């Protein structure tokens, strides 16, 4: 770096604006060039004159900001109530939210009868046989998954309002002001006496109606921005449709929070500027959908005290294949797409309905805070920050809690944790969050023990079942669930937690033919436990597993373990008099399924429980014992009387019964030429229907095995 380059770097260096290499070069140059060093001092001195303006923010500024935010909050209107139809996935018919059941897997809505008739979920590709219901309507203590459907809360209000509106409309038309609230009158609205208007109000709509709909009218929404039209939404066979119909002179306006236009019992009621419009509807002769046909009566209503919203509610036109799920307090609509993702429509974003796709969810739940909680299989998300879903956890299990919250387990970096969504919208994670500081799996076990009648199920964790006894291991302890009673085994020095956990993960928590007996093996030792009526006794068995050894275990008639080292086969039998180690000479050996075969005293033997069975006499220790998996034959290579040949004997094995008997099962016995360069220690194996003999990684011979004869 020369002086010119160095000088140009002096100021940037004061602002960390140089790359590391440049800084180093500059430092080096400054240490050798006094002139540049002086200049650097001047620059630093000049910069030191710059002082941060020590200005305190004016006190009044906060008040102004506060007022502005308050005004802004007050100005923000509440979300419009979009009306969305729900249709039965099976029969495509209209579905009352409160009466519908949802598929336990994909949440497709069904009539209860339809689901029962079909026997399973009728959604394409879903074969779920269980259903779920929203918490408020399920009538069960622990429905899962929990779907807190807002619509189910609104339904009764709406129905009451409809009845009131119809009664009010008809009552006023007949001059019977005292009819409101009279149940008899509510049931006997005589629409025939409603005087018809001069011209059919909705005649034009009828044409479009036929063109658009192939289902039935389920919801009607009124635009109230002064545009004289209203929308009809209908659930057809291929999805929710909507269209406009002209009102011409009749201005129908929607008031916030009211169901302005409803069709029920053959009557259409509209809240208009001039009062309540009551129209007659009738069935079309060709199909089941309703047709509005002009009979309209205007009924004066007292002026509404509610301020009209400045917002413009839109008719949501769900594309084919999307099914309405729910709506949150912000007016966002949640629908399920065919690809099992959740589609979120936000009516407030720039006057349109931008979609946001959320990872597939099995459930949708709204909290008091307005945040939506979505969960599906192994993932939970919140939509707290609007259209910005954040995966919270990879969930392995989800359990609805009594208070409306959710408890779930998730796995991260091989460890199990729990998390909880409270009914108040809070999310908490970690062992301390639930069930007295127990870790995730133990919490799940406790949940299981508490609610086992409903939730008893296998969890994806290190566990084993022994009849009614369930065992599980979490990060700290061994848990035993026996008849609803949970017992904890505190780890001891004799039971190293890590080793135990690792061993269990390696699938060596052994079943036992005896109730309540189980064995845990870690890398060093075997441990023996007895469970009796929930009490667990532990005894470390004094068996040390040598390094580089293999353990064969079984539990057919008796529980046994065989520890095979490069020198010996040691046998452990935990029941009966043979408890302890049995020394066995063990070369060569092979394991076929659960069966260990080894050469002992010039015979091929096997063990079934503690019992030793001689399978084949006269097998030399130098023999090679191989398994032809393709045709399930045992291949024994042994030296023959002819020094230039090897005898290859193939024994047929019986599928599924292990190795019980070999004598008499000979399929072939042939002499094959002794490969040049081979010896008794050469490698041999069977693959692709051939016997391969190798020496030092080089194939000496590949001999096709004769086909199995029976």
């Amino acid at each position, binding site marked *: 770096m020369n002086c010119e380059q160095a*000088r*140009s770097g*002096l*100021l*940037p260096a*004061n*602002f*960390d*604006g*140089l*790359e590391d290499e440049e800084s180093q070069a500059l430092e080096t140059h400054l240490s050798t060039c006094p*002139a540049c060093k002086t*200049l650097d001092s*001047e*620059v630093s001195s*000049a*910069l030191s*004159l*710059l*002082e*941060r*303006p*020590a*200005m*305190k*923010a*004016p006190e009044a*500024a*906060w008040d*102004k*900001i*506060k007022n*502005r*935010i*308050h005004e*802004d*909050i007050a100005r923000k209107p509440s979300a419009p109530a979009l009306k969305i139809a729900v249709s039965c996935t099976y029969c495509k018919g209209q579905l009352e939210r409160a009466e519908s059941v949802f598929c336990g897997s994909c949440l497709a809505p069904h009539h209860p009868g339809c689901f029962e008739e079909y026997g399973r979920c009728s959604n394409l590709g879903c074969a779920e046989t269980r259903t779920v219901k929203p918490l408020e309507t399920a009538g069960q203590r622990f429905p899962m998954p929990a779907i807190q459907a807002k619509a189910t809360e609104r339904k009764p209000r709406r129905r009451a309002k409809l009845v009131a509106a119809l009664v009010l409309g008809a009552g006023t038309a007949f001059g019977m002001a005292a009819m409101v609230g009279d149940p008899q009158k509510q049931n006997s609205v005589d629409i025939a006496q409603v005087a018809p208007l001069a011209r059919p109000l909705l005649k034009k709509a009828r044409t479009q109606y036929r063109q658009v709909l192939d289902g039935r009218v389920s919801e009607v929404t009124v635009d109230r921005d002064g545009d004289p039209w209203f929308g009809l939404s209908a659930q057809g066979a291929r999805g929710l449709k909507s269209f406009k119909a002209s009102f011409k002179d009749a201005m129908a306006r929607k008031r916030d929070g009211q169901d302005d236009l409803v069709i029920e019992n053959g009557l259409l009621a509209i809240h208009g500027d001039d009062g309540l419009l009551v129209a007659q509807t009738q069935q079309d002769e060709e199909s089941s959908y309703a047709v509005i046909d002009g009979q309209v009566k205007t009924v004066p209503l007292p002026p509404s005290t509610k301020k009209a919203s400045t917002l413009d509610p839109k008719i949501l036109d769900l594309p084919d294949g999307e099914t309405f799920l729910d709506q949150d307090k912000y007016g966002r609509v949640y629908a399920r797409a065919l690809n099992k993702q959740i589609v979120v429509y936000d009516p407030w974003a720039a006057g349109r309905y931008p979609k946001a796709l959320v990872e597939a969810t099995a459930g949708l739940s709204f909290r008091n*805070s307005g945040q939506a909680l979505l969960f599906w299989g192994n993932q939970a998300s919140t939509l*707290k*920050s*609007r259209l*910005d879903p954040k995966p919270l956890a990879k969930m392995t299990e989800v359990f609805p809690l009594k208070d409306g919250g959710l408890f779930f387990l998730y796995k991260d970096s091989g460890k199990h944790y729990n998390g909880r969504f409270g009914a108040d*919208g809070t999310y908490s994670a970690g062992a301390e969050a639930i069930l007295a500081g127990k870790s995730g799996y133990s919490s799940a076990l406790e949940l299981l023990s508490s609610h086992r009648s409903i939730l008893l199920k296998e969890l994806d964790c290190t566990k084993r079942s022994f009849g009614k006894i369930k065992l599980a291991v979490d990060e700290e302890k061994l848990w035993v669930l026996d008849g609803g009673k949970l017992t904890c085994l505190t780890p001891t020095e004799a039971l190293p937690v890590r080793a135990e956990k690792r061993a269990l993960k390696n699938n060596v928590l052994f079943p036992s033919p005896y109730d309540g007996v189980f064995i845990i093996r870690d890398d060093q030792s075997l441990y023996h436990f007895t469970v009796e009526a929930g009490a667990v006794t532990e005894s470390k068995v004094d068996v040390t597993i040598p390094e580089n050894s293999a353990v064969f275990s079984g539990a057919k008639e008796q529980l046994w373990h065989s520890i095979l080292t490069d020198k010996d086969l040691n046998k452990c039998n935990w029941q009966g008099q043979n408890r302890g180690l049995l020394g066995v000479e063990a070369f060569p050996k092979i394991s076929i399924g659960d069966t260990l075969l080894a050469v002992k005293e010039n015979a091929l033997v096997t063990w079934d429980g503690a019992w030793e069975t001689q399978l084949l006499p006269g097998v030399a220790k130098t023999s090679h014992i191989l398994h032809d998996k393709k045709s399930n034959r045992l291949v024994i290579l042994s030296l023959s009387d002819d020094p230039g040949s090897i005898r290859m004997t193939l024994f047929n094995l019986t599928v599924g019964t292990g190795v019980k008997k070999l004598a008499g099962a000979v399929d072939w016995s042939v002499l094959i030429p002794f490969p040049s360069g081979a010896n008794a220690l050469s490698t041999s194996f069977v693959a692709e229907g051939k016997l391969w003999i190798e020496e030092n990684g080089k194939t000496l011979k590949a001999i096709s095995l004769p086909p199995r004869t029976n």
Partner: protein
Amino acid sequence: MRDTQSDEPADQDLVALCREQRDQLTENFEQLYRRHSDAVFSFLISLLRNREKAEDALQEAFFRAYNALDRFDPERAFRPWIFRIARNVAMDQLRQEKKNHAVVTSEATKEAPSKEDTVSTVSRRERKELVQDALDALPAEERSVLVMKHFHGMTVKQIAESLSCSLRTAKYRLKGAALLLGTELSRRDITSVEVV
């Protein structure tokens, strides 16, 4: 990165609490304001060189910040974020001023010398004003990065967050701004050797 203060909730926690109750203004946001308003105000004065305008910009910045809390990334520090908003507000104002041919003065940062000033102090004061002039002479974009670095001690990473750019770009902009400052300083004979 978390903003930690002794015994006080971190900025990110305060933001989270604010988000929880979006339908009402809570004291959590006020706490955020109290924590950062002085620095933001000082930053705005450095950029706008006018106290009144800086006050307006301060209000606008915190108002925008409140409405954008949902977009705040809790994995990052709050200060670079609010600085970014403040910088954007200031840039908007400056652009508007440019349109309206508004005259920008630097009254806020100028102080009259007192009678007690000795000759050397005055000389130092003049020199200080010249350096400040050199800084003020920079375009607002360049000035803002130098101010963030020099006055507010922000790291290059934080400046990168404020500018929504990469670390490398932030360094590049710092270097460019510093070189410009060097030119302005040499024009005012602050440095005996021209730094180019």
